[in-house]
């Protein structure tokens, strides 16, 4: 096995105009000294799905969480994160405002213990939106975008917890969409779902690509190859390869990438 510090890296670059978010030399330290991410510099293209892959402890989730400042309280994050023309890793950034633009969907579906409708409207109401007609409209739009409307339109006031796991996860996506983000971060969104729900979720993500940029951590290689446009491979805190998904899965350049995706690691 090649030493990660000596391994060559192959990182795809985009034109400035095509980028929506990018990182420059992003490093993450836990407890002040334990470094878990090493100088990650990645650019993400607008309206695409990017998969972040790599083994456990490779730094992919740590990286993802940096993108909407979820490591603030748990780690020190050095480096730059450019969202449009703003370095969002600066102290003066309003992270609540930031998270409206960069939403997140987690591994385990986590709907609020409220009705389906309230799950969508909760954040909007908290932000002062009172117009019922407008709220209804956003509920329908968000649920339609998350491909859930037809399944739940007659039970909007039923508890979200009564839904299936797959539906709950799509509700979480709908909830994220309600506040009109530009970027959606997804941390293993399908790992707790059965194959049918996974397939529906993937169809939803593919449809959302026309309007949103998605960055997704996944352990499922087939999922990464099925739905993402670009794939970044993380290994022991280093990004070793970033390219089109087609290239990564048919002809990766790095030896470690090849070994990992072929499943012959270790």
């Amino acid at each position: 096995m090649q030493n990660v510090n000596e391994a060559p890296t192959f990182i795809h670059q985009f034109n400035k105009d095509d980028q929506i978010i990018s990182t420059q030399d992003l490093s993450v330290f836990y407890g002040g000294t334990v470094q878990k991410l090493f100088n990650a510099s990645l650019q993400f293209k607008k309206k695409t799905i990017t998969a972040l892959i790599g083994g456990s402890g490779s730094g992919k989730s740590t990286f993802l969480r940096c993108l909407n400042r979820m490591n603030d309280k748990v780690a020190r994050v050095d480096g730059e994160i450019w969202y449009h023309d703003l370095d969002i890793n600066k102290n003066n950034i309003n992270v609540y405002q930031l998270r409206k633009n960069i939403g997140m969907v987690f591994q385990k579906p986590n709907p609020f213990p409220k009705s389906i409708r309230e799950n969508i409207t909760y954040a909007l109401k908290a932000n002062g939106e009172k117009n019922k007609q407008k709220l209804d409209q956003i509920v329908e739009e968000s649920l339609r975008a998350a491909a859930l409307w037809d399944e739940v339109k007659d039970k909007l006031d039923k508890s979200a917890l009564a839904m299936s796991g797959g539906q709950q996860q799509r509700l979480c996506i709908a909830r994220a969409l309600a506040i009109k983000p530009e970027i959606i971060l997804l941390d293993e969104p399908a790992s707790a779902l059965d194959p049918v729900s996974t397939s529906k979720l993937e169809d939803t993500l593919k449809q959302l690509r026309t309007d949103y940029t998605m960055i997704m951590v996944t352990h499922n290689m087939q999922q990464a190859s099925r739905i993402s446009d670009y794939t970044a491979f993380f290994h022991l805190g280093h990004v070793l390869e970033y390219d089109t998904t087609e290239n990564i899965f048919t002809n990766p350049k790095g030896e470690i990438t090849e070994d990992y995706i072929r499943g012959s690691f270790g």
Partner: protein
Amino acid sequence: MHEIFLDELRKLNTRFMGMGIDVSEAIEEATQAFVEHDKKLAQSLVKDDQKVSRAATKVEKRTLKLMALQQPVASDFRNVISILKATGDLERIGENANSIAWETIRVKGNPRIPEVEAIIKSMAKKVNFMLDQILKAYVQDDEKLAREVAQKDDEVDEEYVKARNLIITGIKQDPEAAVASSSYFMVIRLLERIGDHVVNLAQWVIYKLSGELVDLNTKDTDEMTEL
């Protein structure tokens, strides 16, 4: 998990190579039968004309199973796909060799044209050599050799054109030779096609090793003939 895949892949490679060796023998024997007018040998060849096709089906079934169950990626994927595609080309080569054997049985008429038969012999020797070399390139993962083999097809194409012209001259000189000539035309065409299939095999070796899909079959032999 990956060991299971690699083990299956090794078995698949062995079957594929076995098929390649059978096909190589088939070309050699079929052309030998044709130029030596050995109908008996030809008959023994066509008797089991489904042999290569049966072997191809077995390889294809195993390949498809491997793809469905193991879902290979990267070099594993290229390996499996190149076997699947190359098997198709090997099967076509086997069919062409069989058609040459059939032509040996069907061919009627005298006189023959010895110069044409000499070229047929030479073409057969060349495509056979190319096939053996490409199988070697496949086993040894030798991209350079694969490209060299593909280049050799130019010589086969040249001989094809030369043979066509010789046949036409032969018919002009002795119209009686026209009967045998229809078989000559058929056989040189089949040999030329075998050369093209070997070039396809070279392309799959290159794809397997580099991920690059190249088109090395660039010449149109019909355009080269001045008819």
